[in-house]
């Protein structure tokens, strides 16, 4: 099948290896991958700040780019939720409403697409490390994705997954929230990092680079040895 891979803006600019891994993994399964180069961002920052009028032109461009896609795969639970859940709401009563609904129905978060749509769990990956998994809130509660990333990790050779007590607690990123309320965002991140560290894991794995950017930023600043890595990069380790 031809998969239209939507690489989120922060993955493009800051974490290209996660995006490259997604391409290689999907191609490795024999699918054709296309990445619409005209797409920059899903429009979530203005949308979440309440500026829906400013978010619409950005989202409309995304819809235009995705309109012929067979399956849209997004490398982030958060941007995935934006397209799948919030675009139909953003365009309610607008000319693009039907298109938004149509695209939402064929949009998938990366790990859930692989497990639930393609029925694949084993990439033959090797990652001999103890890891803990962070459920990004949008993936978990907007898209109800909990099992898929774990099913994928279970098949990685040498990998030991230890769940943290706060696995489902928000890391504190929250998009513009992180900049508008940095003290609360940081406190939440500290809670998350402490819970992850308690497991004795070497890595926090997640399917959302934005959460990991926030957590890694705290860990680096505090000189902690714990590292973060995107799920796709783990699956792409040989």
């Amino acid at each position, binding site marked *: 099948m031809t998969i239209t891979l939507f*690489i989120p*803006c922060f*993955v*493009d*600019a*800051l*974490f*290209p290896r996660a*995006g*490259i891994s997604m*391409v290689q993994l999907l191609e490795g399964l024999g699918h054709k991958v296309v*990445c619409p*180069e*005209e797409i*920059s*961002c899903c*429009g979530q*920052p*203005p949308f*979440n*700040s*309440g*500026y*829906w009028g*400013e*978010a619409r*032109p*950005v989202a409309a*461009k995304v819809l235009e780019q995705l309109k012929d896609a067979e399956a849209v795969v997004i490398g982030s639970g958060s941007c995935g939720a934006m397209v799948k859940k919030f675009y139909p709401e953003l365009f309610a009563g607008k000319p693009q409403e039907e298109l938004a609904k149509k695209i939402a129905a064929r949009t998938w978060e990366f790990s859930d697409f692989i497990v639930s749509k393609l029925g694949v769990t084993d990439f033959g990956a090797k990652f001999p490390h103890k890891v803990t998994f962070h459920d990004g*809130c949008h993936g*978990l*509660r907007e898209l109800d994705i909990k099992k898929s990333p774990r099913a994928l990790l279970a098949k990685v050779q040498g990998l030991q997954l230890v769940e943290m007590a706060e696995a*489902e*607690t*928000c890391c*504190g*990123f*929250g*998009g513009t*929230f*992180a*900049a*508008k*309320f*940095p*003290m*609360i*965002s*940081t*406190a*939440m*991140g500290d*809670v998350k990092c402490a819970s992850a560290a308690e497991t004795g894991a070497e890595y926090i794995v997640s399917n959302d680079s934005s959460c990991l*950017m*926030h957590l*890694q*930023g*705290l860990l*680096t*600043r505090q000189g902690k040895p714990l590292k973060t890595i995107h799920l796709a990069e783990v699956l792409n380790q040989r």
Partner: protein
Amino acid sequence: MSTFASQFLKQARVMTADLRHRKIIRTALTNYEIVRDKRKGAFQSWESARQAAAETKWEAVNHLDKYLVELVSKLEARGTKVHWASTGAQASEIILQIVRDKQARSVIKSKSMTSEEVHLNAALEKAGLEVVESDLGEFIMQLRDEPPYHIVFPSMHLTRGEIKDLFQRELGDAPSDSPEELTMVARRALRKKYLTADIGFTGANFAIAETGMISITENEGNARLTSALPKTMVSLLGIEKVLPRLEDLALFLPMLATAGTGQALTCYNTMYGGPRQPGESDGPEEFHVILLDNHRTELLADAEQRDALHCIRCGACLNACPIFRNVGGHTYATTYSGPIGSVITPHLRGLQDWKHLSNASSLCGGCTEACPVKIDLHHHLLQNRRNAATEEPAFFERSLYQIFGFVANRPALWAVAKKLGRFGQPLQNLVKGTALDPAKAWTQTRDLPPMPKESFKDWWQKRKG
């Protein structure tokens, strides 16, 4: 920025830095979670129970016109005096009028967040009355002259030691910091007050339209004493507290106890159907029920957020909220704190003044997941943000998003912006975290990842050739 918003930011800074406070709340709520989850497991299906509760509340709230009339006629049939209050001030005035009619000098109260909402204590005290809170947590907070910290656990942020010191200072009686002994101190102080109070004031957890009854659920027996001993009983409740049928309590009482405190059922569950009837040996001689609107009908008119009126004030969303857990209840400076407070306060007290509470959320959805009556809390926060920005857009923020949109929709410009970011990063590193740093809000506590030379799109284009 509203004064309330800057106060919130200031207080959030203080509270997030208070590691001791954060640890107290975390410990208390972790214990709550353990017992709550155990009780949830006792339901055949917690999810089905939530669905049934949400549907019952939907029915009640969408037919308030019918159920309120039924409630009132049933209450009046047994001699209860029913009053309607449009505003908080009107509610207080109605109670003051009852006080004047009865020539009352003292009021004993059981727990009522609605009385906090209308600032009843201040109004009564201004009129020269003695007001005594009889719920232990509320009693403690009254001695501290502070509003409740949490809807259900008013003094959860205090340690036993702090309560002992408080009792010693205010009551001159605190033999130890054991909860049992401290409770006995409060009991000794309160028992006298029940006997001398002229008026017993209560809130309500539910009001049953079918039978015309007020349902009060509690753990200390103080609401029973409050209602049974004084000659006059007054109950204040929001109009959304009505439930259609008596049998609805079979779901709502265990649900409220489970979500609120992790109990199967609270220790005392009482239904009040009216004043003392002929031939009855006890109960108040007069029973007044005050039904409060105070902007609830405006929320009712908002089809998108009407379900916020489903709230049974269990506090589960506060307990689940990572923002509440890290800034604490008083930082909100509202009667109702946590997610439900952030949703409804803009409706009760003004959107522009209180929109910051809707912004102070990572939209994680933990609240919505915890809510026993399935209020779509975190999406309502998003709607409040939209409504606030539509009504009064902030010039700077809107301009920023207009520029963002302009650049995002022009891939060549977007690529230039990325390059600027990459070349600007070494410069930004020189001023990292200082006032000169444009990313200061981020970099004060966090590093930014180094921007790689090759972005994903660079790689993709190169590969394509």
